[in-house]
């Protein structure tokens, strides 16, 4: 990390030196606050990954308690490198690959079915393996969708205001979402991709009414569905299919089944109290809470660092989203703004859904916490997205702000 900071500092020095010769470039903006927040979250994530995984890693991997830490650190380094590269490429360079990104994502997803490429972990075949690298096509699809939709909306121009344009943007992500859901059996990633698309559409369209109607209809639909499931489940064997919903409503009744992980997460969060047990002192990570270093890492953060730690992390994410907003609002063009909005949607949706799952606010579904959860693909593609945002930020001329 220090190396990167030095590099950034070095970059700044070249900038300051260049200031004297090329004034125009000197007026350009570099968002250090955002970079700091991201680096902080990454560093904090590595600490928490070590804390949550060291005990089980030592048991599973012949005493190598840093097993998960080392892998994640490697992915982070690669990600940071990718981020720097992307940040230094003017983002318009990518616009020409927008359609390719869409087709590429669509093509990559079925690869998880190819026996030679398929990589299975925790009983789910969601990865493809190329050499030493495992990549989750859903992560590629998120980035691809952001790039594709930003480009699409720009090309449409005022067409976005027509009903046809509106529905074109709304429908374009659906095939990808369906593929992610059905082929990789990953509903949560499908929801995230669709959520990113919906947010980009919301921002690029001047409409409010349609979104409010859609939102209200969606909420009413979900509530109706929940009541319906609650009603039929008691007698019907259909109840089995909706076990996840039922376990959400009363995790203690399903303590040994679908409610197990949620309940363990609640034990972790609840037992943290206001000040937490102290870093490294979690009990729930000792095999009680499955996937403690992964989707459920936030509950261990709460257990070890308490309510203060939990809220501090939420605030860090809020700050990050605030930086995204500032950059998007000052982007020199619509394409840049929409790229940032897409990344903002990606991060915001994942943070919200992750914390909502961990606190049993919504039914349990596998969503990782950006920058913090264990997962190489996720951190790599997130950092590429951050690179894009930095690139957009560099396009801002200071006098415009």
């Amino acid at each position, binding site marked *: 990390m220090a190396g990167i900071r030095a590099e950034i500092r070095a970059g700044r020095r070249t900038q300051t030196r260049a200031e004297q010769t090329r004034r125009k470039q000197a007026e350009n903006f570099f968002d250090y606050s955002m970079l700091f927040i991201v680096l902080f979250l990454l560093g904090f994530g590595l600490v928490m990954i070590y804390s949550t995984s060291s005990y089980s890693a030592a048991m599973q991997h012949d005493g190598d308690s840093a097993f998960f830490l080392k892998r994640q650190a490697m992915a982070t380094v690669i990600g940071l490198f990718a981020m720097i590269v992307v940040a230094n490429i003017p983002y318009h360079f990518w616009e020409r690959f927008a359609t390719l990104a869409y087709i590429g994502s669509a093509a990559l997803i079925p690869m998880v079915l190819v026996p030679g490429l398929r990589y299975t972990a925790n009983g789910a075949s969601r990865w493809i393996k190329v050499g030493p690298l495992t990549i989750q096509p859903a992560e590629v699809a998120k980035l691809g969708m952001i790039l594709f939709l930003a480009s699409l909306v720009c090309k449409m121009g005022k067409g976005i205001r027509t009903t046809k344009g509106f529905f074109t943007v709304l429908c374009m992500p659906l095939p990808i979402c369906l593929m992610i859901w059905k082929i990789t059996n990953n509903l949560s990633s499908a929801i995230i991709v669709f959520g990113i698309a919906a947010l980009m559409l919301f921002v690029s369209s001047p409409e409010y009414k349609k979104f409010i109607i859609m939102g209200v209809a969606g909420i009413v639909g979900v509530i109706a569905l929940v009541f319906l499931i609650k009603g039929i489940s008691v007698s019907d064997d259909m109840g089995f299919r909706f076990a996840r919903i039922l376990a959400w409503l009363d995790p203690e009744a399903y303590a040994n089944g679908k409610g197990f992980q949620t309940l363990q997460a609640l034990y972790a969060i*609840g037992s943290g109290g*206001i000040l937490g047990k102290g870093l490294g002192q979690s009990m729930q990570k000792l095999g*009680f809470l499955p996937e403690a270093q992964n989707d459920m890492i936030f509950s261990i953060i709460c257990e070890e660092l308490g309510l203060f730690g939990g809220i501090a992390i939420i605030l860090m994410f809020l700050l990050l989203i605030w930086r995204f907003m500032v950059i998007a609002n000052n982007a020199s063009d619509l394409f840049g703004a929409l790229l940032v909005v897409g990344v903002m949607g990606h991060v915001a949706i994942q943070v919200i859904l992750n914390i909502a799952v961990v606190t049993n606010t919504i039914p349990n579904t596998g969503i990782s916490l950006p920058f913090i959860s264990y997962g190489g693909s996720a951190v790599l593609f997130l950092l590429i997205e951050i690179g894009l945002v930095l690139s957009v930020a560099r396009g801002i001329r200071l006098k415009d702000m």
Partner: protein
Amino acid sequence: MSLKHKTYIRKKIVVTFFLCCTVFLLLCGRLVYLMVVRSEYYTGAAKELHERERKIKAARGRIIDSTGAVLADNRTVCTISVIHNQITEPEKVVKILAEELGLSEEYVAKRVEKYSAIERIKSNVDKATGDKIREYDLDGVKVDEDYKRYYPYESLASKVLGFTGGDNQGIIGLEVIYEEYLKGKEGTILTVTDAKGVEIAEAGEERIEPENGNDLYVSLDINIQSYATQLAMQAMETKEADSVSILVMNPQNGEILAMVNVPEFNLNEPYTLPEGTAEPANQEEKQNLLNQMWRNGCINDTYEPGSTFKIITAAAGLESGAVTVNDKFSCPGYVMVEDRKIRCHKVSGHGAENFVQGTMNSCNPVFVTVGMRIGAERYYDYFKQFGLLTKTGVDLPGEAGTIMHKKEDIGAVELATVSFGQSFQITPIQLATTVSSIVNGGRRVTPHFGVKVVDSEGNVKETLQYGVQNNIVSAETSETMRYILEQVVENGSGKNGYVEGYRIGGKTATSQTLPRGSGRYISSFLGFAPADNPQVLAVAIINNPQGVYYGGQIAAPIVRQLFENILPYLEGIDYNT
């Protein structure tokens, strides 16, 4: 294509940001709810999940007789277990454990190889074997000490003492009644474990020491109990009887000195049926047989007392004034009650006799006449006043109640039969208690074993108190009864109970068991000494003797032999210590 032209986009981005803020705020609210409001609940639930409790058994209190002999004790036994993660030399462990514990190597190997927190290999292992295994100092082998109930005298007073089950809880006898005093309080070791149950060393352990049970001192006297058991065994063998019971108590305070019910059973193997028993077909049948074996005849079973009950009729008659000592009777060998002819055991009749002689002869017509004079209602009231309708309150479980006619159902025939001890049933302990109150001056004492409770440091925690009911009969009646009953032994049907040099009172009984004509009898004798100031009262009951079955012939000698031995012995004992 600057963004400035599309101000609505900026606005929407800001709206998005504030939407995020709202949702984040809601999530923070949720966190506050979980981590502040519900914190206590989840902390408790998590603690329960993380902590493993290991019980430390408390030593059960001993049962000690009046001479200081320990009747129920604890023996240290060991439980051998292995902890998979800590084993370094599995082959050696398997070999040594299999050898020392007499188990097959496959059995031990299976447990040693099993991945679990702790795996029990064998429990109830001798301390010597446990110590030997401990000396090998094998990694991952744990030897935990534990207590097991142990009865040094095996079958002595088995049905009185009772035994304990797998959790050291009383199953029958005194072990049940005094459970609260004896059991003590289990201690616990609380350890923190991970999800697999592996203890986390750094977390340390919380230890709550066990509290040992209190010792129970009982009135039983091992010498009297042993001798009575010997006499009972002898009688059972020579008379080929089904069972023999002997009850010895102090009529002044209710302390029971001996209670024998042969055949007894070995308390250290309470689930082993007597030798020669056919293998029971199923579990239920086995349980029935075991229950039969564990029954305490003196308390759990009722019988028709027969002539010994004439003591009660006599006391009621004297107390009510229906009869006096000098009242004259004439026995023709039978008595007519309504249209029924009730025979005396002497078919030719006893002829002219006074009340004392009638009692000495155990003459049925005399007692039928006295019963008639008292009248059904009054007789029933005395029955009740003497405490015969209530349980004695003896400190043993399962005391049977009296089976008696309802007051309104007592006609002349019922009254006549009750008068000489038939057509109703009481327990031997009830008979002994009631007679005690008649000969001790009219105080109905509570028969009991428990004397005092002493904690493991030797401090008396509680001196057990028992209720006494006064004025059961008047002092005069009591004195008269002592005189009459002494006459029974001196010159009457109970002369086989006579012990030279002592004044003995008593009464014999021979009752035919139901159904009549089965040829099954119960012979019994109740005796007390000294007759003028009773200090000890004994009842001997022989169930289904073969050959001679008269109580005066076979039961009275048992009490005589008992008294011959224990009276000199009791005189040497100072009761106040």
